[in-house]
């Protein structure tokens, strides 16, 4: 493990400690009993009917706090810096940086495609990496897409899912965002694998690590359109939970 790894590990531990204190998700009732509203749940909802928004979320108190923490970091730090990055970086350079990381992460996709016993994904992704690392100059350009080679995205959470591991409880990861216990563990494995690959392929110097990590974070944020608390619904936490859970399920079935 490298310096950034050790540092971020302890940051995560401190965050978890802070965020798990006092996590009640109950409202405050003024007076003894809630005044029945015009449309109470008893009046409107049939018992036993399931809803698409129902996702196993026993750690909701914790998750909601992390969600809000992530929103705070995003709004006050990540988004402004990312906007600055996009403003000063010419579009072709930005694209090349994105291509570069996509190409690099494809190594992890190949690994996971092997683990998932998917020869099609292994062959196609290997083809992509071969073409883009050579013709595409270390992945800065993406001739493979123009040649019609499909881009897959496989991570260790998906591999676990392929092996029959269920998602487990919903989990909002600090800084990384909505996930599940399974996919959170998967993300840890992916992170380790990607770091090792990077160290094997490129020079593992500290300045290099810093530049790499910074660009990776900026590029990742720049390519996600989501903005916290701008979905227009007071039920955003629940909506995001449903969409992410559904999306991951489809990713695994794919």
């Amino acid at each position, binding site marked *: 493990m490298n310096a950034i790894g050790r540092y971020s590990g302890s940051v995560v531990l401190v965050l978890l400690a802070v965020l798990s204190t006092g*996590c*009640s*998700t*109950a*409202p*405050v*009732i*003024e*007076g003894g009993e*809630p*005044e*029945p*509203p*015009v*449309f*109470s*749940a008893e009046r*409107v*909802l*049939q018992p036993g*009917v*399931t*809803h*698409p*928004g*129902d996702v196993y979320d026993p750690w*909701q*108190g914790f998750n*909601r*706090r992390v969600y*809000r923490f992530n*929103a705070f970091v995003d709004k006050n730090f990540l988004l402004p810096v990312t906007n600055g990055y996009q403003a000063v970086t010419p579009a072709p350079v930005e694209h090349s940086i994105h291509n570069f990381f996509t190409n690099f992460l494809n190594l992890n996709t190949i690994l996971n495609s092997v683990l998932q016993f998917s020869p099609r994904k292994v062959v196609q992704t290997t083809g992509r990496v071969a073409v883009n690392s050579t013709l595409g100059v270390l992945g800065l350009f993406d001739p493979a897409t123009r040649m019609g080679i*499909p*881009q*897959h*995205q496989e991570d260790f959470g998906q591999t676990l899912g392929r092996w029959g591991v269920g998602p487990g409880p919903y989990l909002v990861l600090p800084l990384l965002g909505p996930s599940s216990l399974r996919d959170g563990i998967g993300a840890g494995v992916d992170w380790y694998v990607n770091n090792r690959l990077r160290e094997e392929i490129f020079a593992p110097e500290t300045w290099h690590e810093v530049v790499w990590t910074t660009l990776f974070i900026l590029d990742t944020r720049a390519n996600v359109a989501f903005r*916290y*608390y*701008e979905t*227009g*619904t*007071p*039920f955003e*936490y*629940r909506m995001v939970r449903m969409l992410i859970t*559904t*999306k991951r*399920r*489809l990713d695994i*079935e*794919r």
Partner: protein
Amino acid sequence: MFLCFWAAPAAAYDYPIADPFLATVVGTPAPLRAPLPTDVPFKRRSTRVLEREAPDALWYDQELRYSYAAQKGPAPLIFTIAGTGAAHDGSKSWLAARAFYSKGFHVVALGSPVSANFVVAASSSGVPGDSFDDARDLYRVMQKIRDELQGKLEITDYYLAGYSLGAFNAAYVSHLDAEQKAFGFRRVLMMNPPVRLYSSISLLDRMLENIPGGPDNFDDFFEKIVDAVGQAYRRSDSVRFDEELLFKAFEILRPTDELLASLIGLVFRIASANMAFTADVMTDFGYIKPSNVRLTRNTDLGVYNEVAMRLGFTDYFHAFFYPYRASLEPGLSRGELIERMSLVTIGDYLRGADNIYLIHNVDDLILESGEIEILEDLFGERATVFPRGGHMGNMESRDYIGRMLSIMDPGTAP
């Protein structure tokens, strides 16, 4: 151009989808879309409009969000108002903004006055839906934003546009401006407005009745759609969840009009759930949330979400909006309130306002039969009515955008 469209829209018009349900859901096929700039320099801003503190559970909506795009030199400014519950940066809102920007306008895009953010940040009553109140709230917001932008933009003139419910709002804002004259809009464009709100919300509520097996079966209905999206996703080479994928999902589903109607109904149901719950939290009315329950930032809103999704606009009208209005105006009957929430209420004004233009579709799903004739009567030669397009399905087409921009042309507008 204008006369040609007006006299014979059918001859010049190539929007192909004749089924209004399908048109509403899939929109305009890519080859028929108007070419518009994609690099409009939108800036996102938020502004504190009211002194009132936002409730804890809605803390993030304290300020009203809007976006603007500025021309380099002096230019007219156009405000756009989004449709039912939509945000300032929704796809249709920014589509209109991009079109107007390409025509040389500074553009300020506003969210719908029934969107959660607007209700919390800018609705003085916290109970949206009253045509006059919503217009006053919008008017206050527009003046505030103008003051904020005045140092940055050189504004030569003011224009106003809205689509769907936003077009209805625009008519009332223009009516208010005729009296208060803070802007003096050179031109106002109404795109696919409802005529009588109660008719439109009844039509939209009913669309959800098309879910096979009724609302208790919503989970299965949702699964069916997810399955179709999943199949399209598996077959697709792209890892993106995008429009293309939706088109493919539709090819797989081969949706019936019933299914399309329930999808449209669902989109509006989400808007009504967001609006009603937000208004309830703002006022402690006791509609869905017990009036003496305080929600914290951590409260699980799951049950309220499920209940809100079972209630339509008409439930909101009868069990919340009407009782609330009647408490302010003793003696007000339901029938009076229903009739008041209509363009006909300001019909005399609209008939005489030669700066207000209308674009609509004969087969728009939010209109009852006979309402398109009411609009043609109100707007006369200032109405353009296309023969196909459903509700906003043709908005991205060359014909629609072309008409929008020939009406809103700073060069020729009187």
